[in-house]
């Protein structure tokens, strides 16, 4: 087969575009519908998180972390407080650990639901999106019941959490899980096994395992490529080592290993695992106080720490450096979406514009976290 080469055309996808998942501009070189190169332009949402952090106290950084990954703010908080506690070498009460894991896993479900729903929207299916938002809404209601906020919680504090769980939270949460688990099958029937959906995602945008590791792709995207790596299992933080759960990896379910469908499918399976963790945590949660007695001004010892945690998008790392004063010397956030976006150019070459949208959606990026 001969290949007819046409003239290159530059297509600007974004900064305002329905499926850039935020304010992102992709400069796409196309030959007809075929994409030959993508240059992402970032920074439209740059809010100087790291510079700000150097000018506030350690506690005041936490609201900023909320606003980075605004779809999984609990997990952003979680990563920061875990890193801080490691830096200060303190241990929090057991109940706090349980509460944090419950919140983190609930937020993981919420974040994955949004990712999967929006992915359906990128492919052109509108209905699954609203089904998933409907269920995500119930999780947000639970968060609101717990800490008063629906999106940006500022819930986890260094050494504790801001509020204890409401009295009947366990009951509500179990009720939600009982309702929610059968829904997963409904999503699968509606979207996952749809022939058109499979055609659009299987074999598209394959990220081989070595490329994924080299690009620092983590989380469901890396596991979609078949690498069994989950910080919760491999470098356990908090009390994740107490829970029984599997780490789902992609298996080329309908196509090649590491294609868009695998990344989607891993997220779907992860929701089930999160439900598993939640059930165990809700069963074993002990009583007690949720506040570690800490001085009002936290002064960690001199030194630095790099701690990564498993946010819904992958390895969320915080590099925190202290010089002994109440303000951090340096806070660096290693964001999983940032690394995931960097692989876009490599995997999208040779695919069509529609596939670029599909690949971008399957990477599940949040621009707040990329630009920080």
């Amino acid at each position, binding site marked *: 087969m001969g290949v007819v080469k046409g003239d290159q*055309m530059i*297509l600007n996808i974004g900064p305002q*575009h*329905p*499926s850039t998942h935020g304010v992102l501009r992709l400069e796409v070189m196309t030959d007809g*519908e075929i994409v030959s190169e993508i240059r992402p332009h970032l920074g439209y949402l740059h809010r100087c998180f790291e510079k700000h952090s150097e000018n506030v106290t350690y506690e005041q950084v936490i609201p900023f972390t909320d606003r980075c990954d605004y779809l999984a703010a609990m997990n952003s908080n979680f990563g920061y407080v875990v890193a801080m506690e490691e830096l200060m070498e303190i241990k929090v009460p057991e109940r706090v650990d349980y509460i944090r894991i419950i919140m983190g896993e609930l937020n993981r479900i919420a974040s994955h639901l949004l990712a999967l729903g929006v992915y*359906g*929207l*990128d*492919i*052109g*299916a*509108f*209905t699954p999106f*609203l*089904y998933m938002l*409907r269920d995500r809404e119930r999780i947000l209601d639970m968060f609101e019941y717990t800490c008063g906020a629906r999106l940006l919680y500022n819930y986890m504090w260094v050494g504790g959490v801001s509020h204890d769980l409401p009295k009947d939270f366990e009951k509500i949460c179990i009720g939600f899980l009982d309702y929610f688990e059968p829904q997963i099958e409904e999503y699968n029937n*509606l*979207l996952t096994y*749809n022939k*058109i*959906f499979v*055609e*659009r995602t299987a074999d598209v945008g394959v990220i081989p395992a070595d490329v994924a590791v080299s690009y620092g792709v983590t989380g469901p995207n890396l596991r979609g490529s078949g690498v069994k790596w989950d910080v919760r299992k491999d470098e356990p933080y908090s009390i994740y080592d107490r829970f029984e759960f599997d780490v789902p990896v992609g298996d080329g379910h309908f196509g090649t290993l590491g294609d868009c469908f695998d990344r989607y499918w891993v997220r779907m399976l992860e929701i089930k695992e999160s439900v598993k963790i939640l059930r165990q945590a809700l069963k074993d949660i002990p009583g007690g106080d949720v506040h570690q007695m800490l001085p009002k001004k936290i002064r960690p010892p001199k030194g630095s720490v790099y701690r990564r945690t498993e946010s819904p998008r992958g390895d969320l790392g915080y590099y925190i450096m202290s010089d002994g004063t109440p303000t951090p010397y340096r806070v660096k956030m290693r964001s999983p979406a940032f690394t995931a976006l960097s692989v876009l150019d490599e995997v999208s070459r040779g695919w*069509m*514009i*529609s*596939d670029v*949208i599909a690949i971008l959606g399957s990477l599940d990026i949040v621009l707040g976290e990329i630009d920080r």
Partner: protein
Amino acid sequence: MTVDMLMDWFATIGDFPILSFLLAVVISGVPLFLVMALNAMVAVYVERKVSAFMMDRIGPMGQGPGLHAGKWGLLQTAADAVKLLVKEDTIPETSDKLLFKMAPFIIFIGAFLGLAAVPFSSVLQVADFNVGVFYIIAVGSIGVIGIVMAGWASNNKWSLYGAMRSAAQIISYEIPAGLSIIIPIMMAGTMNLQEMIHFQEGNVWGILPNWIIFNNPFTFIAFFIFFISAVAETNRTPFDIPEAESELVAGWMTEYSGFRWAVFFLSEYANMLVVSGLAVAGFLGGWQSPIPGMFDTGAWGLFWFMSKLIFLIFVMMWFRWTFPRLRVDQLMHVCWKVFIPIAMFNIFGVGIWKLIFG
């Protein structure tokens, strides 16, 4: 209520040919336009409600007297229409202004002309052509020119992509649609829609109505190929790649707003009506009653035709709110490598069937 009938009637009154011609055209054309507008208004409301019920929401709703969109959101389309009419009509600075303004009219004309030949009942048809089936297919292709014109004139890359995709899609899917609609023509031996519907009177296999779709296995397959191709021709999901809001923003309609956009909208729904009307007339017995010999007098014809039409339009909406979107090459693959061979085989099969059984 064809133009010819009106002309004959005027001729009995007096001899004023020019006036009677103009009157006949206006009398039959204005209701046609009203049908088109009414169809769009109803379809917008139905589409909102159907999508809402499929998505587990309630859709447009009124919250009390004088609030929001009236009872059950019935005023929603009125609000939509008012909004579209008073919205600012923007024309991009760098666009080709003449073509930009002309494109909506050409698309509108295509849809309007098609509607003229839809046989709503045995008498309610604006123009009863000898070659009605073929005529509808033909005027459908005028819209393509308008779409390409709109895409080009907008001077926007998204529009251009959308226009090219749309044109490629429509002229490709015209082939399986055309090949499939040949089958009713073969069965009935006529291209006149009324004669074709009359052919579908009576019973087949004892119980089923004698609709062409039930006539033999090949016609059964042909109906589905025709209907799916028709959905593709109207650019609706899962074949809405020319608009593809998550990829191409809004495709060839990106730069249009206000009333010009409303014209596109009107035409899209009118096109749905036309292709569904053709499917009903060609395969589903037109205005014939599903129980042969019963309920087939007077206004029942209109009722049956509209019921079948509305059912098909509902199925199109059902598609839209359930399916994801195909990719452009998969779309072409389905058309050229699946539908066209099957459609050709169907023609062959129907020919053999007619030789043996008919």
